[in-house]
């Protein structure tokens, strides 16, 4: 292309003009060469301190205040100051417009990389991935966070910081059990939210007295125990308590709802970590090379880019001190690059494994992969023997009774299929909270809430007991948890609730 195109920058200092120009050029490449469909970008330059803030609130630009965020920040600030932790170069928020934070410490090369990665890679992923489209509402999130913050501030004024904090503590304990995994949530809208809040208060009163009608009255009818409530087990614990706790004040129900809504919004991020990062890396990798090919960045800039890029996608071996699980950047990037390779330079092996091998329209397949999957299914669909070989994957089995671990599969012909499904299973499990469901409410006796663990994995009992205490505080009566080998009971009245 145009050899004469002037470099976007020669020294490495960023300026707002350079960021604007770079964003424009990257946008052109993203549209022309990768056909990316993105939300409008809002790029914000922030300081390291502000980045630490953003970290503490799981990346959200605004959050209600809570001590746990202060704790998180204190820990991270300490690690950062001691040099144990580097800060991410960027943070990006799934909103419309899509907000990306750039750190002021970054060099111009880094800013360019980050814009490609976040403002176009992640942005396109947020807008197009099926899971994000269904589960989150990029339009409403900023307003909703604002609403949540204001509402909680209001509650703190009325009921005191400690009382509000108590409810948030309990809700946070159930954060990962507050998501509807099988049902698409409603859109967030602040105005509706205000209106709905009022309607809800009235409805709940009515609804509750419906459930509990028979309880305090002396009617000793034994006819009803057949009627189980709830009819089917309920997996969304926060939702269930919010709707059915006998004596919970309305403002507490609202806080549960707020925590639940935000958990719901964040849920897809945990389900698509590998894909999301992999795709963003794929985009920045492509864009940086295009910029270089067009003569917009120099060789030095490309070298600096390689240095950061390789650091980001580095996968330490299982026996390395630096090993901390599978690096989602490494795995995701490897698979997306591999999809392109399988299209353009397929081997016989690829043809056996993938129907699309050899189809020159690689972009179509990249888009399809990015849109239609989540981590588990993505790995199950696209993890190729080549990538397994490159990463030297192997599967290890632990039998608690045995003296040794057993290698169940390695990266060879017998092992590929097995490894692939084992890894997919592992990804699915690690992204899932223990499956605890409400199976019954004792409506005719002591009103205790009966929970049951539905999956096969053992629970951490200490944690479970503390969590149950929180639930009992919200529920107002005893809570039983049938954890398979043990039944735990938390008594109400132990906590702050009367």
């Amino acid at each position, binding site marked *: 292309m145009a050899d004469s195109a002037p470099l976007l920058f020669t020294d490495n200092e960023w300026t707002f003009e350079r*960021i*604007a120009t770079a*964003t424009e050029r990257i*946008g052109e490449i993203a549209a022309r060469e990768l056909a990316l469909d993105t939300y409008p*970008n*809002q*790029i*914000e*330059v*922030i300081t390291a*301190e*502000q980045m630490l803030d953003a970290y*503490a609130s799981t990346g959200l630009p605004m959050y209600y*205040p809570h*001590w*746990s965020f*202060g*704790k998180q920040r*204190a*820990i991270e600030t*300490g690690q950062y100051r001691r040099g144990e932790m580097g800060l991410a170069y960027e943070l990006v928020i799934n909103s419309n*417009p899509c907000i990306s*934070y750039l750190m002021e410490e970054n060099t111009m090369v880094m800013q360019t990389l980050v814009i490609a990665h976040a*403002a176009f890679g992640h942005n396109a992923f947020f807008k197009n991935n099926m899971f994000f489209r269904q589960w989150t509402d990029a339009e409403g999130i900023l307003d909703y966070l604002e609403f949540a913050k204001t509402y909680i501030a209001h509650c703190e004024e009325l009921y005191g*910081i400690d009382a509000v*904090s108590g409810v948030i503590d309990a809700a946070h*304990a159930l954060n*990962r059990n507050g998501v509807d995994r099988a049902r698409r949530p409603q859109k967030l809208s602040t105005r509706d939210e205000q209106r709905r809040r009022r309607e809800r208060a009235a409805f709940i009163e009515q609804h509750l007295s419906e459930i509990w009608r028979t309880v305090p009255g002396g009617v000793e009818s034994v006819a009803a125990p057949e009627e189980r409530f709830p009819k089917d087990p309920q997996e969304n614990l926060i939702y269930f308590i919010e709707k059915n706790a006998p004596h919970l004040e309305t403002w507490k129900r609202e806080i549960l709802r707020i925590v639940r809504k935000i958990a719901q919004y964040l849920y897809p991020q*945990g389900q698509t970590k590998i894909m999301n990062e992999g795709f963003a890396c794929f985009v920045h990798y492509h864009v940086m090379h295009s910029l270089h090919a067009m003569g917009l960045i120099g060789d030095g800039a490309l070298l600096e880019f390689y240095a950061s890029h390789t650091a980001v996608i580095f*996968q*330490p*071996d*299982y*026996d*390395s001190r630096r*090993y901390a699980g599978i690096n989602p950047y490494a795995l995701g990037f490897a698979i997306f690059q591999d999809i392109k390779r399988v299209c353009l330079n397929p081997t016989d092996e690829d043809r056996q494994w993938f129907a699309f091998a050899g189809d020159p329209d690689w972009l179509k397949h990249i888009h399809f992969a990015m849109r239609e999957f989540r981590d588990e299914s993505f790995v199950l669909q696209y993890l190729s023997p080549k990538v397994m070989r490159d990463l*030297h*994957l192997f*599967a*290890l*089995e*632990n039998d608690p009774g*045995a*003296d*040794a*671990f057993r*290698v169940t599969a*390695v990266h*060879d012909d017998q092992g590929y299929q097995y490894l692939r499904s084992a890894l997919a299973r*592992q990804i699915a499990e*690690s*992204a899932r*909270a223990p499956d605890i469901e409400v199976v019954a409410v004792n409506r005719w006796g002591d009103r205790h809430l009966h929970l049951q663990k539905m999956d096969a*994995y*053992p*629970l*951490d*009992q200490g*944690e479970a007991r503390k969590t149950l205490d*929180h639930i009992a505080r919200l529920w107002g009566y005893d809570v039983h948890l049938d954890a398979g080998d043990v039944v735990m009971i938390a008594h109400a009245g132990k906590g702050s609730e009367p």
Partner: protein
Amino acid sequence: MSMIIDRRNLGTRSSANQDRLQRRVRGRVKAAVEKLARRRSLGDMLDAEQPIAIPTKDLHEPSFRRDMRDTAWEQVLPGNKQFRQGDLIPKPLDGDDGDGGGEGTAGASGGLGDDEIAIVLSADEFLAVLFDGLELPNLRQTRTEDIQIEQWRRAGFVKEGSPSRMHIGRTMRTARARRMALRARKKHEHEELTRRAETLEEEIRVRQDHGEDTSIERFRLAEIRDEIKALERKIKAIPFIDESDLRFAHIDQMPRPVTSAVIFCVMDVSGSMGDIEKDLAKRFFLLLYLFIHRQYRAVEIVFIKHHGEASECTEQEFFGAKEGGGTLVSPALALVEEIMAQRFPPEHWNIYVAQASDGDNAQDDNRLVQERALSLLPQLRNMFYLEVNQDQETALFRLYRQMSEDFPELLTARARHTEDIYPLFRSLFSPRQGAVHG
């Protein structure tokens, strides 16, 4: 469409979270300060910038988690080197060395886990919690000009001044810079000429060897040697020090508010004061010191012990001393006034007097005490009297309390047990207390 925004000047938004965190750990912080207070001497408390660690287990956030330690699992790992399918790898003997093998899935989401990572609060922050909501009561109303004093302060360097303020270091530095700057070019020329002279000498020698004429070269050499001599003279002529090099430390008069305070700790060390009483007094003085220190840049402490007579002493002597004899309070107050006059003129210092005693004063001394106190009080910001004994209010206590009706800056309190001190301190300094008198 892209928008680029500079958010850097927006500052951080962590203070609300920080407040709530401190609220949450306040109990811990108080306990920690209490502990420090028991172990350490007064001065150390503030030098000790070392933070207080709060175990995160206090701030634990429970949730339903898996416990994969004693169960079957399977994991996919990267970086296989020699393993083949079916290989057996002996388990590490120590069960807790799980990182390499199995814990990955279970713990990965939690990140920090239950580790005892410490949260760091600076000394300042925990004092803020400790003294939260307290203020110095009945701070004597001062006119603004009282707080300002004129003071000579250093204000950089100037080229003119009196010889006594000449700054040798600066002067020599400038002189050296000047010498180097002036010499550099001449040295350069000198080297150049020397080299040319050497070349000429070489030429002359060679021509002589060949029997050629050397008169022109010799003439030229003589010329160059003259030039070199002239240059050397010039280089030598550069003065070692020049008037323009002189630098003088400048001082200027600046108004400055009085930001220093002094606390006179006065304690009865007569035989009737036991270890318990002294511990009570010590606690009170410590809190007072820390609290007053928050208001001022620098706080000095003067320790005065007294029994029959009063003397100034060190902190160790102050708390360690056990001396017999009867008690007279008035000599201590007289000593305070004397030291004040000598070292801490009230117009330059914020003065506090804190007195602790079991109140067992000789009857006829109380009249003297009243006299002394009356002359002392107008010069003080506050005076505190803490009575530590197990019995009744003493005559001394009643005397002070009576005086406090005319002098609200005089505060009295009684304590019996260690645990009384902090609440007592709080009640003394909570704003409401002041309002009663005000």
